């Protein structure tokens, strides 16, 4: 057993951090909300050139054949910088669905080459209050219509009723007004879809959950960094507010959330890809549930430490909180992983 990033992964982390940091120093992330997709496209082509988008695409389909841990390293860095790119939706969720659930090889090759793909979200597939929840094997099939992490020209990927990953041309559609200003959702004519049942589709689900957890961990880490830096510099009562115990404890709680999310996410990044499928689902569910709730908590606490500036439109804190909420709710809703974990325990009785 070895629970640590390899030297290569630490290098990947460093390079991604530098590249994304430089790009967003030149053009702030927030401009993606209004620039008609210019920053998103520029940053995405940088990631494509570095072969970071294709990490989960196997070598025979033109990818570098990386691991989910590699992809999570990238997702965490992107989250820390609040990078407005569709990495979790395309490079992790869509890629995993295409790769594991028998998607067309040409689509994987296209994804590796930088073609845009969005995942059609499945949260409306099943009755969330039903006995099996949206993830249960007996959840009803249905249709999906909302593309997650949508970008102009993207094709949609969904699990069709026969359990195979299928791509769709997405015509027109309309922008969905949700909470996140940097990762977009778009509504299209519904396509038939199934809940993930087979082992391969469940594997893809576990990887999507873990990818979201990695992005959420990065979002939280960035919120912590912003808050502690501010607490060191902002003076009140003739001293830095970071010297007040009340503020220190808020920051310490954020650190606990970030470090424990990181442990959970990287553990899941290995398990979701390599462990037997039941274990993979269980660990990925814990990662998604925990990192989602933790990121929302940390982004909220960061706003508290920032004080008034934290609740203005001008500061990025709300953009970060928005992105955290979207990813906490992605891929079946925030409750699905917890219901899965509970039912595992109850089935054992």
């Amino acid at each position: 057993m070895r629970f640590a990033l390899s030297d290569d992964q630490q290098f990947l982390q460093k390079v991604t951090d530098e590249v994304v940091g430089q790009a967003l120093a030149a053009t702030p992330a927030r401009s993606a909300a209004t620039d008609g997709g210019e920053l998103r496209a520029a940053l995405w082509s940088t990631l494509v050139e570095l072969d970071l988008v294709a990490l989960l695409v196997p070598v025979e389909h033109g990818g570098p054949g990386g691991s989910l841990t590699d992809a999570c390293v990238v997702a965490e860095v992107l989250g820390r910088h609040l990078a407005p790119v569709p990495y979790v939706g395309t490079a992790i969720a869509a890629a995993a669905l295409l790769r594991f659930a028998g998607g067309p090889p040409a689509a994987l090759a296209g994804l590796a080459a930088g073609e845009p793909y969005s995942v059609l979200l499945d949260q409306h597939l099943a009755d969330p209050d039903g006995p099996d929840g949206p993830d249960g094997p007996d959840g009803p099939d249905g249709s999906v219509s909302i593309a997650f992490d949508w970008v102009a020209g993207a094709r949609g990927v969904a699990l069709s009723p026969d359990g195979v990953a299928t791509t769709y041309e997405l015509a027109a559609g309309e922008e969905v007004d949700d909470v996140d200003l940097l990762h977009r959702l778009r509504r299209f004519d519904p396509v038939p879809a199934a809940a993930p049942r087979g082992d391969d589709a469940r594997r893809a689900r576990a990887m999507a959950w873990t990818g979201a957890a990695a992005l959420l961990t990065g979002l939280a880490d960035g919120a912590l960094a912003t808050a502690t830096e501010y607490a060191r510099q902002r003076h009140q009562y003739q001293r830095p507010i970071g010297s007040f115990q009340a503020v220190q404890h808020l920051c310490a709680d954020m650190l606990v959330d970030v470090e424990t999310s990181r442990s959970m996410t990287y553990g899941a990044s290995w398990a979701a890809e390599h462990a037997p499928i039941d274990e993979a689902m269980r660990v990925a569910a814990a990662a998604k549930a925990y990192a989602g709730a933790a990121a929302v908590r940390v982004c909220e606490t960061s706003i508290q430490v920032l004080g008034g500036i934290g609740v203005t439109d001008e500061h990025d804190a709300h953009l970060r909180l928005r992105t955290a909420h979207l990813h906490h709710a992605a891929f079946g809703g925030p409750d699905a992983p917890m219901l899965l974990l509970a039912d595992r325990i109850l089935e054992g009785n």
Partner: protein
Amino acid sequence: MDLRDSAEEARFRARLRTWLAENVPDESEPAVLAERWPYMRAFQERLYRAGWVALSYPTDVGGQGLGPMEEAILSEELGRANAPTLLPLGHLGRPLHRYGSEEQRRRYLRPLLAVEEIWCQGFSEPEAGSDLASLRTRAVREGEEWVIDGHKIWTSYGAFADYCLLLARTDPDAVRHRGISAFIVPLDTAGVTVRPIVLANGEEEFAEIFLDGVRIPAENMLGEPSDGWRIAMDVVNYERGAVETGYLPKFARYLSELGEVLTASGLGADRAARLRLGRVAAHLEVLRMHCLRTLSARVSGAPPGPESSVDKLLMTAVEQELMDLSIELVTDVGSPGRAEWFDRYLYGRAGSIYGGSAQVQRNILAERMLGLPRQQG
């Protein structure tokens, strides 16, 4: 990242699993400490004789010469086998091993690891709790002896112990933590009085130790004079981890029992109850993964540092969440098991106090991990 067992780890796990299948007692763990203590001790003696504890200590002091990952496997397999809880004292061997003289290691370490001799730690005092550096117990050198006077409190398992790793002030002129030394005190020495403290759940897990002109040989100092603070910080950093203290399998057992309670209460299909159970299950999984990460970092041999406060806050949060859920689920007055769960719940409140309160842990993280400016008086 690779969470698979290596070939050696897999063989170790398989052998351990076989041994546990044949050796875990049928009778379940007694609820009352007076009965639980001999039950836990007897099982741990058997574990030690069979070579399954003290895994990461070297063989020449009575360990198995294995690494932290074997400790993680032990923890997992004990939980899986529903084995008795380990005595949470393994961390006390660490300072003996690191700071002890050749003679001290030979004399004390093997019996400690074998639980033939029980150890406790004499750190806190009535006026030195969170502010441990203000401790007043004094040791004065007289010829070839140290003479110790003072009063220790909150000593875990003090009433069961044979030896105490005790902190005392040896240099009254040095500022605070600089004048403190560590001693090995046999608790049957004249002048030592041990008085159990009855906790809110009725148990006597903690004790007070009164030291009145206690004379111990000069060679019973651990490390050099004024090493006491360093030694104490080492001990608490180990104490704050969940694997070292054997709590992980215990929590896993609680979670599975709570699943049974939920089913028995007819809440198996209740969405809110399932969400609560799932949330706690996720948190326990986080603890497991965080322990693996912590142990992996320790493979290099470096002792834990201030980051162990994350482990402690996490461990405490998981325990209190488990116990809060039990109290939410077992609401029928007089229902079977309610009083027992309540006692565990009460005990869970201690988690955020012992080993450095949750507030002290946050101070440590803020100043030493986040580099926030020091608090001003």
